[in-house]
Each structure stands twice: as structure tokens, then as C-alpha cells.
């Protein structure tokens, strides 16, 4: 992906828009896993598009805030701008019940934080976790569902057991990118079944 000193092409903008749309949509949807019931309303009045283009607009106004030597523009927009916008709304007055793991890192938006999102949220997530969700039972259920499908088993183990990322899982378990992506799709399907079984609201 390009850096701030070169003109971003239309093709690159198309990729940015699509990836930010997916990231934001999924990020917003995941709240059901952490906040349990009664969370049907979310960030009222705002569409996914609003977050995406607010993030892009902030970059266009202040491109110097993105340091391409540290992270790509998409990673910067995802983890430093959109996440911050979403968490701001989560802790706003109309979402007072929304104290959750998206919110804690707000004050660090402009810091040089290259740590992956998951690594950075874990120490803080405990405080905000919805106690009503029996995560151990859900994890046991998923573990039993992935049994017999070695690829999915390894991905599940890699992510949940060892905190590995895509490239690390592929290397550790000698997996091709296609095998990983297909396995991840199957894991997401299983996760969907778990959400249904445990009545996780989206």
C-alpha cells in the first residue's frame, strides 16, 4: 500500500474503502459477544459509512499523522482511527452501558502503538467482560465442533491457545494460505453455530 508522499491511486482507494467497510462492520457486530443481551441498539444514528469516511477524512486533513515506515495506511486507519471513533461512541452519553474492551485505548490514539490490537486489549478486557456469557462453555463447544478437521483444529488452537497470527499459524502448522483461508471460513461457520446455540446477540 502507498505512503503519504505518493498519490493514492483509485484502485488503492477502492481497496481501502472495501477493507475499512469490512473491518468496521465486523468490529461493530462483534459487540454482541461481549455485551450480552440488551445491546440491540448500537452507536445510534451512525452508519458504517460514517466511520469509514470520517477516518479517511481525518487522514486527508492530516496525512502527516500516518507514518508509513511504521504501518500501512489501512492498518493505521483501522487500528488508530476507526477503533478510536467506535470506542468514542461506545462511551458517549447515549451508550453509557457500553463500557467494553473497544473503549480503553482511546487516550493512546496518537501514540506509537504498533502492538496488535488483540495483544493490547487483553489486559483490559477482564474488567469489561460480560459476566453473563459462559465463555468457557462456548470455547468447549467450539473445541468439540472443530475436532476431526485438522486444519480448523490447528487454526483454533493457534489463535485461542497460543495467540498466533495468520502467518505464524501457517508456518507453525505448515499450512498454505488457501488452506488457512478455507479453514478460517469453516471456523467462522462453527462460531456462528455457537452464537446461535448460546443466543449471542449481534
Amino acid at each position, binding site marked *: 500500500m502507498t505512503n503519504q508522499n505518493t498519490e493514492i491511486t483509485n484502485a488503492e482507494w477502492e481497496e481501502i474503502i472495501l477493507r475499512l467497510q469490512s473491518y468496521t462492520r465486523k468490529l461493530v457486530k462483534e459487540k454482541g459477544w461481549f455485551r450480552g443481551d440488551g445491546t440491540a441498539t448500537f452507536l445510534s444514528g451512525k452508519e458504517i459509512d460514517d466511520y469509514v*469516511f470520517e477516518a479517511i477524512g481525518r487522514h486527508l486533513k492530516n496525512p502527516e499523522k500516518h507514518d508509513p515506515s511504521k504501518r500501512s495506511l489501512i492498518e493505521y486507519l483501522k487500528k488508530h482511527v476507526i477503533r478510536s471513533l467506535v470506542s468514542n461512541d461506545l462511551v458517549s452519553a447515549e451508550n453509557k452501558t457500553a463500557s467494553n474492551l473497544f473503549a480503553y485505548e482511546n487516550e493512546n490514539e496518537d501514540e506509537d502503538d504498533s502492538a496488535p490490537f488483540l495483544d493490547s486489549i487483553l489486559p483490559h478486557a477482564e474488567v469489561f467482560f460480560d459476566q453473563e456469557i459462559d465463555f468457557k462453555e462456548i470455547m468447549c463447544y467450539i473445541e468439540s465442533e472443530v475436532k476431526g478437521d485438522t486444519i480448523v483444529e490447528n487454526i483454533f488452537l493457534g489463535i485461542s491457545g497460543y495467540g498466533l497470527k495468520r502467518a505464524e499459524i501457517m508456518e507453525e502448522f505448515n499450512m498454505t494460505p488457501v488452506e488457512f483461508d478455507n479453514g478460517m471460513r469453516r471456523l467462522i461457520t462453527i462460531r456462528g453455530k455457537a452464537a446461535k446455540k448460546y443466543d449471542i446477540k449481534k
Partner: protein
Amino acid sequence: MSNNSKYSKADFIRFVMSTVEHVSSDKEKAKEFLSAEGLDVDSIISDGMKRLKRLKMQIEAEKTKAEMLSAEEAKQKASEWVDDLLSKIDFSLPELVREEELTMSFRNIEKLSQDDIKKILVKHFTLKFLEEQAKRQ
């Protein structure tokens, strides 16, 4: 709550959040996810590019407005600065020309009216203040 599980809350969170990264890790996965959500990917792109164009124009207009405002402020400051300079008893134009490295024909200095001098100096200091402002930014 099941107590015999080897998984912690952190493991659970890590697992749940892993899909956020997965669906946005490249263009194809993003397209796949958005299509699975029942969304029209082509429309997202075309609407998005239109919105981007509007956004760029809006930001450009804001920048132009801010620059014009900034130039006005610099001119006002320069005007006050020059008034102050000219009101000093010991003011010497040739000395100022040397200090400020002004490009001016010394042969014509004596022929300049007070208004001409003021106009030249206001222009010079306006540019100087704008340059200083740009350096600070």
C-alpha cells in the same frame, strides 16, 4: 459456568476478535465478507468513490479558506508592524532595506512617497510572516 475448561477469557476474546482482522486482511476477503452480508460490493465501491471525491473537494475548499484567512491575518499584522516602524523617530529606510535584504533600487528610494514605502514594506512583511508561519507548521 464451566470450571474445567483450559480456556481463559483472553483466549475467548482473542478467538472472537480474530475474525475482525480476517475479513479485512485483503481486498478479496473484504469482498467475500461484504457479499456474504448481503451487500452489493460494486455499489459500495462506486458510492464510496463518489463520497471520497466529495470529501476531497470539501477538504480542499476548507484548506483554501484557511489559507486565505491566514493571509489576511498576516497582512493585518504586517500593516500594524509597518505603522509602528514608520512612527519611530530613528526610522531609516536604507538601514531597513539592508537589514531585511530588500530588493530595491536605492536610486529610487528618495523619490518614494510615504504611502509607496508603506505598501512595499507591508507586502514584504506579509510574505515574511507567512513564511514564518509555514515553517512553524
